[in-house]
């Protein structure tokens, strides 16, 4: 090779090196963010992330859809030993205790201090932050919070000769309305619910009834479930009876029953508030919303928070942590929280956003968006039963619950036996968890 040519090559290589170094200096810090938002939620999330990246050229949040909540958690667990996990991971509320006990997490309340800042946590909606707090300290960033409420099809109500502005308030009315609607022949079934496990937890909380001991696992690890009593049996009896009458149609887990409601096959749906925007867009009828139905004569509690929150992986560089924190502050910004709420139906988590929405008349435009708020803000929040359940093996326990409910509905087991079976299986899981994590 002649020397001229080799000089040229060396020169080129040096230039390459120089430019790449220059690029590296201007390169933003990557913040990886694993989430479980699919469907209409995904688009809203992505536009929020794009907004952050544009406003903060120093950081680049890279969102990655990692499947359902449980798949996301599985991936996060798998990535943990090799330290290849994300900076931020979204987890559902049932994963809360697992995350707290994992040792893989930096609690969010510590982050401002680590960066030499202070932050007022009271600016968030209290029932939401309560759920994710341990001894008053917030562990994960509230992001997509929802609760369960009643959706109903006003057109079907009218066709069946019912007042479309009088949705059922109690389970007794659910039954009466159900019988009337069935008799009118407008639909074959009257109502269904998403997340049957969570809907049961709501039924307990809304009547201030504990799910597990040690204050729902909030004052210490729970050792056993306590819903297998008269009250629990009554709920199971009611649901089984309504099912036998054809009023309640079991529509599967999560969001599967929404299709039946959206297409006018059923008149009512008990579902997460996060489905609101999706349902309003999909339905070609007038959608009504109301509070979760009550059992008359039982104490008042509150509906509990569901959905997900954002967890921060431990052991990040200060630079990355700052990026994470900037992103969290961005999510709390009024306009962003409002964008998220309007796009999905999840609660806007900050009080400022709530006021702005009120001022601009959003809630009077569409009252459906107010229902869930009034529900959680009007309930009590001073008891563990009304704050929500926190259990280590909660994911597996919920499955035990659903399979028992299915057995009761199919008539395979009596409601009481089914509930006892669920409790027994769940208690074993709680004991195993205690054995591993016990104090």
């Amino acid at each position, binding site marked *: 090779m002649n020397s001229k040519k080799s000089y040229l090559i060396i020169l080129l290589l040096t230039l390459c090196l120089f430019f790449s170094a220059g690029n590296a200096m201007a390169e933003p810090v990557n913040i990886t963010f694993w989430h479980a938002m699919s469907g209409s939620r995904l688009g809203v999330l992505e536009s929020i992330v794009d907004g952050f990246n544009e406003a903060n050229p120093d950081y680049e949040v890279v969102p990655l859809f990692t499947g359902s909540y449980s798949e996301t958690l*599985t991936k996060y667990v798998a990535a943990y030993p090799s330290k290849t996990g994300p900076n931020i991971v979204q987890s559902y509320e049932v994963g809360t205790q*697992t995350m707290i006990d994992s040792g893989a997490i930096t609690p969010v309340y510590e982050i401002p201090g680590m960066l030499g800042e202070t932050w007022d946590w009271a600016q968030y909606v209290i029932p939401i932050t309560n759920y994710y707090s341990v001894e008053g300290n917030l562990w994960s960033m509230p992001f997509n919070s929802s609760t369960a409420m009643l959706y109903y099809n006003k057109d079907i109500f009218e066709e069946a000769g019912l007042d479309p502005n009088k949705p059922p308030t109690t389970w007794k009315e659910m039954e009466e309305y159900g019988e009337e609607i069935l008799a009118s022949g407008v639909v074959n079934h009257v109502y269904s619910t998403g997340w049957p496990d969570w809907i049961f937890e709501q039924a307990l909380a809304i009547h201030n009834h504990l799910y597990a001991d040690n204050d729902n696992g909030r004052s210490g690890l729970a050792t056993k479930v306590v819903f297998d009593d008269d009250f629990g049996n009554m709920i199971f009896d009611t649901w089984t009876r309504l099912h036998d009458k054809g009023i309640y149609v079991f529509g599967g887990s999560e969001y599967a029953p929404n299709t039946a409601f959206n297409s006018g096959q059923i008149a009512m749906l008990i579902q997460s508030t996060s489905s609101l925007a999706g349902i309003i867009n999909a339905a070609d009828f007038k959608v009504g919303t109301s509070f979760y139905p009550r059992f008359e004569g039982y104490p008042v509690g509150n509906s509990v928070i569901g959905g997900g929150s954002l967890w921060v992986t431990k052991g990040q560089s200060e630079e990355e942590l700052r990026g994470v924190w900037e992103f969290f502050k961005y999510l709390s910004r009024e306009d962003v929280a409002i964008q998220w709420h309007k796009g999905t139906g999840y609660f806007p988590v900050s009080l400022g956003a709530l006021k702005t929405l009120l001022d601009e008349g959003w809630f009077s435009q569409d009252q459906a968006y107010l229902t869930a708020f009034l529900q959680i803000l009007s309930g009590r929040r001073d008891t563990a039963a009304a704050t929500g359940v926190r259990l280590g093996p909660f994911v597996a326990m919920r499955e035990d619950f659903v399979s028992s409910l299915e057995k009761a509905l199919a008539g*395979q087991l009596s409601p009481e036996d089914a509930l006892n079976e669920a409790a027994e299986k769940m208690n074993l899981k709680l004991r195993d968890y205690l054995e*591993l994590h016990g104090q």
Partner: protein
Amino acid sequence: MNEDKFPGHKILPYILIAPSLIVIFVFLIIPFAQSIRESFYTSTAFGTHSIFVGLRNYVRLFASQEYRSSVVTTFKFSAFVIIIGLAISLGIAQLLNQKIKGVGFYQIALIWTYAISPTVAGVIWASMFAPATGLIPYIVSKISGYSLNWMTNGDLALFIVAAAATWKMLGYNIVFFLAGLQNVPDEFLEAAQIDGAGSWKAFWRITFPLLSPTTSFLLFVNMLYAFFQVFGLIDIMTRGGPGNATELLIYKLYRDGFIHLNSGSASAQSFIIFFVISIVAIFQLRIATRKSIYSR
């Protein structure tokens, strides 16, 4: 290694087989050994802390009514997929082997199902049977007034899932049976015809025995399919429900290991499945090689 076979190449043969050996060790032997070890422990979700529990994971599985019924479900399901599936496929393959007009179209149309991913197949079947919105419950309720809900009827759910799994495997089975049938020499069948055998007799006495290598191969592949590969279908359609009615062993393993993050129990289950499947496989291969007619 016999040195005379590869004169002057002492190390080369080892180097040549090394890649396969490394793959087998890294991806099969080591994980297998690890999961046997883990089956004696109980661990936290993130694997940060484990306790040795001896045989407890196994004892609990065998004591659990749920696990035993999952074994029964798996055998019922496999029997359906293997027996009904192979019988229908053979019937269809026989029909497709006729010299009729447009047979190429029929062949492709029926083999098609194998090209569909489990997810798509699951979604198709699940929406066909969706309780409130599906076509089939609608037709059934119009005809008989009976409301068909496989989300609360376990036997029905198992049947539908098994039917979907069988349907999904039809194409694969038909391809092999068709190839086998086309290898049956026409002279044999003609000779039988001349000897006065009817087509039914000719099929059982000549075609079916000559097909036996194909049949025993398909038996084995379908068994593996029914045990291990229907996971996607189950996950999309029923997630093991209602009330564990469609919880096959492989699906239960997945739920316990990856959703409930209980690696101890999942490892014990994987070892049990391994054990069961090895025995069935040995048994089946022995019978198959003894009974099959490989040469004619």
